């Protein structure tokens, strides 16, 4: 399986008469957007704005971000199963506007009918300042679509619509007319390696539980499935899509498609390691026995693939740490050496035990930093996406006022803390 990937890098985004990429300049036609999503927005009021790295802009109520990704040939579709029938992806030619995002922000029409666990959590993207290093997307160019569901729409219908809107616009921008732009070109494959190199898998544990807390594979929600093998090129083509609004702990769709762990292993494939591929697994299982079994099944799949070692990472926190650690334990017991990546909850003053669950077998940990340490966040000049900041269902905060809060207020914070190179360490 091989994918030819064309990555375009933009250096500006502006409104224009046409949607087109000229050199590094992406112009977006508002009328074009309108035309694309008119059948999806019948009960949705929407506005569109732009945001660029370094601007003094704070995007609030972020629900998901998508990189513009399209197949070069029109008869195929990226993001299979979303707003289009599913087809196999991961081969042929794909083009991306690598540093652009379609950012969907907004509010559900009926938040009062959601049980506490279903309620979306706040997710900010600060394009500059102290918060930028904690926000996924602060170094991208954004087309922000702020959606407001009208009372006639149910929460479930709004959830489906926002995903379809995001993906449709992502494909639309990826397919923009391009001129004077030379993309970076890569062949992505897991070609057999000549020398004897350690065989490595990536164990990728996602969160998918109930409506509004879901992850999709080819458009099907992944809550009743077994751990599965997924090829890295499928991720690039959007086979895994997020419908999870636990904003600080989620893996945004853009990170499913351009995942640093997958990219790192592809980079080193054939050089220092033999990358076998990804094991897609699921946490938040609802009994200890089920958590243990997901661990056993992931380890068994890794062993059958011939893995010598695994890097494990997870989406989520809390009780899902148990599923994650059961996976690490099971792999180690199968002789598969494992490194696990996790954030820490050391408390605001650093005294607390870092992890919810930490068995003996998890002896090779990579830290993403202390996510309970408070930050002083100055207000930014412009707020996009809403009127207030929701402090995790407890209070509303005026986004034009300084905010004293921990990183969990930021969109994709767990992933971004890792990507920014944060870790926790002892200090006196």
């Amino acid at each position, binding site marked *: 399986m091989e994918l030819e990937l064309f990555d375009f890098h933009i250096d500006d985004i502006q409104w224009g008469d046409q949607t087109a990429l000229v050199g590094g300049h992406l112009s977006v036609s508002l009328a074009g957007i309108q035309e694309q999503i008119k059948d999806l927005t019948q009960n949705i009021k929407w506005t569109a704005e732009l945001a660029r790295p370094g601007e003094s802009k704070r995007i609030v109520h972020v629900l998901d971000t998508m990189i513009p990704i399209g197949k070069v040939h029109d008869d195929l579709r990226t993001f299979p199963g979303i707003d289009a029938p599913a087809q196999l992806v991961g081969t042929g030619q794909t083009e991306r506007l690598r540093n652009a995002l379609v950012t969907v922000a907004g509010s559900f029409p009926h938040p009062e009918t959601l049980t506490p666990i279903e309620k979306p959590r706040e997710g900010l993207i600060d394009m500059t300042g102290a918060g930028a290093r904690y926000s996924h997307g602060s170094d991208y160019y954004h087309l922000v679509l702020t959606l407001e569901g009208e009372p006639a729409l149910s929460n479930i219908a709004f959830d489906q619509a926002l995903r379809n809107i995001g993906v449709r616009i992502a494909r639309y921008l990826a397919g923009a007319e391009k001129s004077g732009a030379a993309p970076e070109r890569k062949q992505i494959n897991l070609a057999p390696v000549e020398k004897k190199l350690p065989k490595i898998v990536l164990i990728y544990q996602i969160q998918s539980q109930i409506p509004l807390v879901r992850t999709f594979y080819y458009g099907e929600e992944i809550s009743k499935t077994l751990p599965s093998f997924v090829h890295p090129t499928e991720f690039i083509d959007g086979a895994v899509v997020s419908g999870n609004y636990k904003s600080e702990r989620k893996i945004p769709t853009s990170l499913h498609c351009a995942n640093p762990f997958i990219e790192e292993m592809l980079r080193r494939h054939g050089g220092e390691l033999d990358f076998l591929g990804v094991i897609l697994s699921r946490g938040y299982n*609802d*009994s*200890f026995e089920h958590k243990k079994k997901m661990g056993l099944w992931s380890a068994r799949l890794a062993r059958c693939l011939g893995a010598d070692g695994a890097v494990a990472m997870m989406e989520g926190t809390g009780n899902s740490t*148990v599923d994650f650690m059961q996976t690490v334990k099971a792999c180690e017991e199968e002789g598969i050496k494992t490194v696990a990546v996790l954030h820490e909850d050391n408390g605001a003053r650093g005294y607390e035990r870092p992890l*919810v*669950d*930490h068995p003996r077998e998890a002896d090779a940990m990579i830290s993403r930093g202390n996510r309970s340490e408070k930050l002083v966040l100055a207000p930014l000049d412009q707020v996009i996406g809403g009127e207030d900041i929701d402090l995790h269902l407890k209070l509303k905060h005026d986004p034009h006022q300084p905010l004293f809060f921990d990183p969990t207020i930021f969109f994709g914070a767990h992933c971004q803390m890792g990507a920014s190179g944060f870790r926790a360490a002892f200090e006196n």
Partner: protein
Amino acid sequence: MVLITCLANVATQVGAYRIMSGNKFHYPVGNPDLPAAEEANWRAALLSAALKILQTPVDVPTVF
């Protein structure tokens, strides 16, 4: 005290001594798949076992 939870392994790490596995994460002493009368009996049996644990000496965190 007897702690009824589905995360017994975490309970041992935070120092609880008498730990009992509950049903599912979302309903530790519930069994909604059963008809109401049977569920009530099931729950009474579970709590009866919990009471026995309160009478059992332990030295270290123990999952019953």
